[in-house]
């Protein structure tokens, strides 16, 4: 009896998964975007082996070399190889986005689920959400950097804090819909514990919505993170981070435009692929989220 109930509760995730892959592979734009993203992620993960030079090796005899030649994408004002720095910088930038999405998603998801399941908590949780929503991400970043000092940590906190309220709202919306389903009532009647109800019956049925929302947010989070780094609130030199590299290149814009342009284009490429893929995933998994 309870196995059938469970099957109903965590209904058909197997089916949507195969459907997802089939439809994504048929969508040429999404397929290209995912291939590019996979290459970028692999390059970032295996950065020490992929990068042609040491990203921190200074060579004052070879500063601001234009792209082409020995250094494929040129060198920066300290003679460091830009391609290697972009590869290592992508690592840090992707990490920022990932940490923001994972922790923001976890905290926000738990808040949304709890708000939907326990009516008593709903008002309190949503009030916290409202206050958090009053701060745009960049402002949170500025405030955290002012309190704790600029650094990658400040950016991470800002990204998580700005992801939490949106995820909480979306999750709560989805979870309230699930709570109205009959199998929740049935589970209660069977005497299933609150924990099982929350995890098996409620959370597993909201996960695709949360996942879609987070995949749509990923690109935006990277943009905010790199903007904060660009402003000097994030990674500090000599750490390679794409937004900060663009900011450093700004001082040499007229002599050697590639120093700022190459990292900016790398951010653009990553975010573009993430957005295209996010749109495709949404169309397959959760067309209702379309706005």
């Amino acid at each position: 009896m309870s196995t059938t109930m469970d099957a109903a509760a965590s209904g058909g995730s197997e089916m949507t998964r195969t459907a997802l892959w089939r439809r994504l592979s048929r969508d040429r734009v999404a397929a290209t975007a995912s291939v590019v993203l996979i290459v970028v992620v692999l390059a970032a993960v295996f950065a020490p082996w992929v990068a042609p030079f040491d990203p921190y090796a200074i060579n004052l005899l070879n500063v601001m070399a234009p792209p082409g030649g020995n250094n494929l994408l040129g060198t920066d004002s300290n003679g460091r190889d830009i391609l290697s720095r972009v590869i290592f910088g992508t690592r840090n930038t992707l990490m920022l986005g990932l940490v923001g999405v994972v922790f923001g998603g976890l905290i926000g998801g738990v808040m949304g689920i709890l708000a939907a399941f326990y009516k008593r908590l709903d008002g309190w949780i949503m009030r916290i959400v409202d206050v958090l929503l009053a701060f745009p991400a960049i402002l949170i970043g500025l405030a955290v950097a002012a309190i704790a000092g600029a650094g990658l940590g400040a950016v991470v906190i800002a990204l998580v804090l700005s992801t939490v309220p949106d995820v909480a709202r979306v999750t709560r919306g989805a979870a309230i819909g699930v709570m109205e389903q009959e199998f929740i009532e049935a589970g209660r009647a069977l005497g299933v514990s609150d924990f099982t109800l929350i995890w098996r019956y409620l959370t597993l049925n909201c996960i695709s919505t949360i996942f879609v929302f987070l995949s749509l947010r990923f690109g935006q989070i990277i943009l905010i993170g790199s903007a904060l780094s660009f402003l000097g609130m994030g990674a500090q030199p000599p750490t390679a981070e794409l937004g900060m590299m663009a900011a450093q290149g700004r001082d040499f814009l007229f002599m050697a435009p590639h120093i700022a342009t190459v990292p900016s284009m790398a951010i653009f490429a990553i975010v573009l692929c993430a957005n295209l893929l996010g749109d495709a995933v949404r169309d397959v998994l959760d067309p209702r989220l379309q706005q």
Partner: protein
Amino acid sequence: MGRQIVHRLVISFPALLGVLFLCFCLLQVVPADPAMIIAGPDAKQETIDAIRLELGLDRPILVQFFEYILRVLQGDLGRSIISNKAVSEELLQTIGPTVELMIGGLLIAIPLGITLGTLAAVKRGTLTDRAIMGFSVAGVSMPIFFIGLVLIQYVGFKWNMLPFTGRTGPVWDGGLPSLILPCLTLGSVLIGPIARLTRTAVLEVLGADFVRTARAKGLREYHVIVGHALRNAMIPVVTLIGLQAAFLLGGAVVTETMFSWPGVGRLAVGAIISADFPTAQGAIMILALAFLSINLIVDVLYVYLDPRMQR
């Protein structure tokens, strides 16, 4: 209508308190004890205690918070550590340029975004639609500083067409040229999202009965689209443009920093980098208040545009 707005004001009250509390916390983290700084290095413990008593630093944190709110209400935000000018005075000088920049950006982004989005919806499925949508996805994915860098390098430096550092004055006093590039930068990041939202909203309305009726009446297509479809699509578009307020604000901070635009965002960034806590606190507060008020204005507009909400 009035009740809706009052309700909205009541909702934003906790958020307002949150903003104030955060700014208050910012002042608490000043690395050194203010009483010790005032007393000087060789002061006796009694002197320090006396100053602390005078400043109210010995009282409970909630009382201090309450007093902070009272001071803010009187416009007293403290003095800048760097320039020793009153923070409120510095803020007053920077608010104008920031508002100017934001309005300029919106004046570029809203008409362009709505036109492109409507065009894409009307020509749904054609090459035009795909090109516009491709353009707007690219726009949504573009770091704002990239656009700024390209504009500075080409329009500003290579072609020497427009100034790209600082502000030469108010718009009515020959300041327009220096305003164009920052506004273009800020506006360009908003075109993509607005076009996407408008397209969805117009598509939804195009299938509605009243559009079919308008066509059946024999109205010209232009009137059907602009007078009937677009007008109704504006309701979701206004709300969603309101949701872009965060974009607008964040974009303004980056744009001001890039173009050395003397606005609140650049003041905040500069103050944080030089650890000027009172100024940082004031600037962040003003930006947060601006964000709250933009949302409030959008809600009021929403009620105004949608007569169903006025009941």
